[in-house]
């Protein structure tokens, strides 16, 4: 064989190396897809007994009685929805305000330091929020905040009934603190992606810093901020430990925020290891399926919104 023949063979082998590398990495990337498919298939298959038994009525029934094998998801859906909405109500104004401050108003050095600290907040494990909530948040809620709410706003059904400290309000407050860093950091990124000209034009016609931020920058980043809110909502819906520790764990539906409730994630966390019958496990897995579907839906929406802002930012710049 000639020298050029050998080098040609080597070259071909190396090109094949490229192909092999491509295929190997492609296989690993497909694993991600495979995991997603398996996840859905497993949840769907394992919840079959409960789906067959209760059908769509599962979502609208208020009975949850493991002994009588009657399972309905409504109290948990209610608890999850109320605590998540409460958390958004508390966290969104606060978080967006903080994001505007960090990206538009603060001096860069202050902004950098505060952003790092806020990101640390996102790294604190859920169970530690729960620990603090039990011993630091619930006692003052029980002794000061909730009696005050009852006294002043007791005419509203929202603040009636007995006061245990633990309950929907406590869970909502913990959730609000937990989703705050997500809203702040993603909204901040959306605001930072707004082209400079947008600010400069507003400042050039005599707007104050706040007016430039509020009238020129925030509307531009609207989609991104909405995306951050949806992302935070998805987090709140699936949040387990901290909620389990303070929501009160009672599968009932009350109008009052002071009453104990239950969330989808919390009931799975509490009852899964103790579930004896196949139907009970299957019903819990179906709850997992409901939770999965909800968070996927909201996440998908949030990601689309964020993609849209990224594209808009690129065009604007």
């Amino acid at each position, binding site marked *: 064989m000639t020298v050029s023949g050998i080098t040609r063979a080597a070259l071909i082998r*190396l090109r094949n190396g490229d192909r092999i590398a491509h295929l190997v990495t492609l296989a690993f*990337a497909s694993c991600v897809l495979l995991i997603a498919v398996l996840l859905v298939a497993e949840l769907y298959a394992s919840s079959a007994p409960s789906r067959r038994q209760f059908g769509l009525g599962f979502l609208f029934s208020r009975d949850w009685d493991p002994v009588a094998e009657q399972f309905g998801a409504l109290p948990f859906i209610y608890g999850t929805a109320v605590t998540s909405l409460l958390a958004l109500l508390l966290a969104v104004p606060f978080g967006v305000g903080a994001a505007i*401050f960090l990206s538009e108003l603060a001096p860069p050095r202050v902004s950098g330091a505060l952003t790092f600290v806020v990101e640390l907040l996102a790294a604190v494990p859920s169970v530690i*929020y729960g620990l603090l909530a039990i011993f630091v948040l619930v006692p003052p809620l029980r002794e000061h905040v909730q009696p005050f709410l009852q006294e002043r706003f007791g005419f509203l059904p929202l603040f009636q009934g007995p006061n245990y400290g633990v309950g929907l309000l406590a869970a909502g407050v913990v959730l609000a603190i937990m989703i705050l860093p997500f809203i702040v950091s993603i909204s901040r990124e959306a605001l930072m992606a707004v082209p400079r000209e947008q600010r400069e034009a507003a400042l050039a016609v005599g707007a104050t810093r706040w007016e430039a931020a509020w009238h020129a920058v925030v509307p531009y980043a609207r989609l991104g901020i909405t995306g951050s809110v949806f992302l935070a909502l998805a987090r709140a819906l699936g949040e387990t430990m901290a909620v389990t*520790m303070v929501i009160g764990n009672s599968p009932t539906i009350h109008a009052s925020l002071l009453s104990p409730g239950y969330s989808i994630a919390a009931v799975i966390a509490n009852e899964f290891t103790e579930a004896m019958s196949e139907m009970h496990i299957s019903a819990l897995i179906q709850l997992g399926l409901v*939770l999965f579907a909800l968070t996927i839906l909201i996440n998908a929406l949030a990601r689309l919104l964020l993609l849209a802002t990224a594209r808009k930012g690129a065009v604007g710049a």
Partner: protein
Amino acid sequence: MSYRYAARKAVNGLMFTLAGFCAVATASIVLFILGFLVWNGARAINWEFFTQLPKPVGEAGGGMANAIVGSAQLLLLATLFGVPVGFVAGVYLAEFGGRWFPAVIRYITDLLNGVPSIVIGIFAYAVLVLPVKRFSLAAGGLALGLIVIPITVRTTEQFLRAVPVSLREAALALGASKWRVVATVVIPAAGRGVLTGTILGVARVAGETAPLLFTSFSNRFWSTGWDQPTASLPVMIFTYAVSPYEDWHRQAWAAGLVLLLLMLAANVLARLVLAGRGACRS
């Protein structure tokens, strides 16, 4: 005119203060959390906590040595399983991607990242616990590994993409084939960034509790193997915090402090690794 101007200035000042208050208040929550944990945890922590097994209910004292080792085992399993898969998939997205498939994978990865960890736990339960009817270390490791994968995919891709095109072009111009460029030029150049992402990803799952509740479960004694129930720090914090015993509350604070310090250390370490890169460049 000047009256309106004064009013606008006032609004500006007011909103400046309000927004600043929001930011500072958010940041100070971290200080509150750290403060409470140090205050309650430092009093509770002692040598026994790190070296002893939990005592039976009602007996004071004892520690969480088995849970500390269990958490380390779980993290090791999760890292061994999750990081390689996530890393290679990330290399595909950054370097070998075709036209539409990478976009699909990227979107799915983001969605997986948003799946509640307890749902991942149900999956691991259905795959590894239900067939053998036994909680196991392996199932917990699987659950945590599945959470690590999407995090690693995205950080790997992000840092590989940050490697300048000129580096790749220089290597390609010398006649290196694509996989050699990726393996010997791009990946080493992005090494520190990828390492940072991995540290943060593993640190995040170190605090995960929900997926462990019904996979690795808990154990009052040393775990004897990968197919046995295993105690972990987060699950111990949960069990002890919701228990009615004063001494268990004390230990929950101690465990919380240890977990949070580990978390902070990982974050600071990740920062230092990244800062090291900056120093090398300049």
